[in-house]
């Protein structure tokens, strides 16, 4: 007769977190894209591109994300307390960057000064970085605290921003050379995103992670590569090589690349967010027997 190797009682193994739902995920989804877009819009403005519409879209995305979070927190009317812990909290720092994003963005729209456009881009990039650090600081979720998670979360925000810029290129960048530059940038960032994603997944598998996290992330690996990265890359090439419907290809490429990033972030924040669970390095000595081996249920990896 064989018994199960470990029969864990109630909630010993890692379990999926249920405190951050789609509203919290939306902050990372929309905020990351918005911050990335602001950064690349500011970059494009260096070559004289009119990026006012892109600034509006970028700020709107960040605004939507923050509004979703506001609806998620338990005491929304105390939300301003979020500014109290600048010393160590990346959530405070993210919230602290937001007024600078909107302030410089509004000034950029109102005055058209390139300095404010650049500042908006820099603050947008800071917003993306702060969001990635929020997840990295959460030690209770092994899939987030893994050192390779932060780079891929930041990279996808910037890849999404560059892809949206590519989608907007037919409207805001009339010169072919400019469009080629934007598409090249988007392609490079998609490649970086893929490499960091694969690196992250490999790291999680080799270092060990909750089985649920590995399952959720492995499930999207193939489709994310094919539809979230390869397909938009092909569409970007189609668009930049001047094939028929090149403009439509660029728009579609940008939207698909963004959708891929959103899918990854939703999976990371919701489906792959398994807790640490419990583990003990020694089972206690009972009676005259020796101590038992270590126990760490619910963890997988190679």
């Amino acid at each position, binding site marked *: *007769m*064989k*018994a199960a*190797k*470990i*029969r*864990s*009682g*109630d*909630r*010993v193994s890692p379990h999926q*977190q249920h*405190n*951050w739902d789609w509203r*919290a995920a939306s902050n990372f989804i929309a905020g990351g894209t918005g911050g990335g877009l602001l950064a690349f819009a500011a970059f494009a403005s260096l070559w004289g591109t009119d990026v006012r519409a892109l600034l509006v879209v970028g700020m709107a995305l960040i605004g939507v994300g923050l509004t979703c*979070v506001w609806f*998620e*927190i*338990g*005491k*929304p009317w*105390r*939300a301003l*307390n*979020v*500014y*109290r*812990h600048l010393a*160590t*909290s*990346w*959530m*405070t720092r993210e*919230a602290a960057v937001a007024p600078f994003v909107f302030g410089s963005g509004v000034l950029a729209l109102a005055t058209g000064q390139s300095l404010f456009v650049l500042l908006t881009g820099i603050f947008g990039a800071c917003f993306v970085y702060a969001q990635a650090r*929020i997840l990295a*600081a*959460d*030690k*209770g*979720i092994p899939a*987030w605290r893994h050192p390779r998670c932060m780079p891929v979360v930041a990279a996808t925000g910037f890849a999404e921003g560059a892809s949206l810029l590519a989608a907007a290129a037919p409207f805001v960048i009339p010169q072919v050379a400019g469009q080629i530059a934007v598409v090249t940038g988007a392609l490079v960032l998609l490649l970086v995103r893929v490499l960091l994603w694969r690196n992250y997944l490999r790291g999680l598998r080799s270092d060990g992670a909750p089985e649920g996290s590995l399952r959720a992330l492995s499930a999207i690996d193939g489709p994310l590569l094919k539809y979230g990265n390869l397909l938009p890359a092909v569409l970007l090439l189609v668009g930049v090589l001047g094939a028929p419907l090149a403009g439509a290809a660029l728009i579609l490429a940008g939207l698909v690349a963004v959708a891929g990033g959103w899918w990854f972030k939703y999976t990371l924040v919701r489906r792959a*967010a398994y*807790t*640490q669970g*419990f*583990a*003990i*390095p*020694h*089972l*206690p*000595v*009972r009676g005259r027997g020796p*101590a*038992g*081996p270590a*126990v760490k*249920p619910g963890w997988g990896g190679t």
Partner: protein
Amino acid sequence: MTRYVMAIDLRRCVGCQTCTAACKNANATPPGVQWRRVLDLETGEFPDVRRSFVPVACMHCDEPPCEEVCPTKATTKRPDGLVAIDYDTCIGCANCVMACPYEARSIVHEAKFAYGDKPIKSEEVRFDPARISVSMKCTFCIDRIDLAAKTGQVPGRDPDVTPACVNSCISGAMAFGDIDDPDSKVSRLLAETQHFRMHEELGTGPGVYYIWDKK
């Protein structure tokens, strides 16, 4: 300095859950929320099967990740080692819930009682509306610890100023006290046994020690 910690002798714990019940009674936690619970681990393959019980709660860490990520400073680390929450400052963002590797924190968004909408007598006395929609967790019975400063009693020795779970433990598996005092019960226990702390590799410096064998 004073650093309050807990020592739990896993050799003695029988998994009776009395500490869980005592905590629930002392703190009137809502249904589904247990600040102190006892994990039940059955391991091995027949015929070599073991059953072990591991009481868990907030570990009152030296470097609490919940305190680091809290955007409001509602979570603070006190000089005596206790990790406390100011319910009037917390915004219920749940960042601390994500940061805690011990699943010690919970957020409940509506008043819930053991038997329907109305509280039973003990819940009526202890119900705290300030805890709705904010983060909550084991406090090491902080009100009792603070009482000790007024009465001169010693936490871990005098029951009035000792956490309810420790007082209730039927097998004497739980001890509480000042680890910086070499004569405290916890210091003496830890000096003569082998022990570990949960997930120590994460650098949190938990304030709960699990005893698993003699030295």
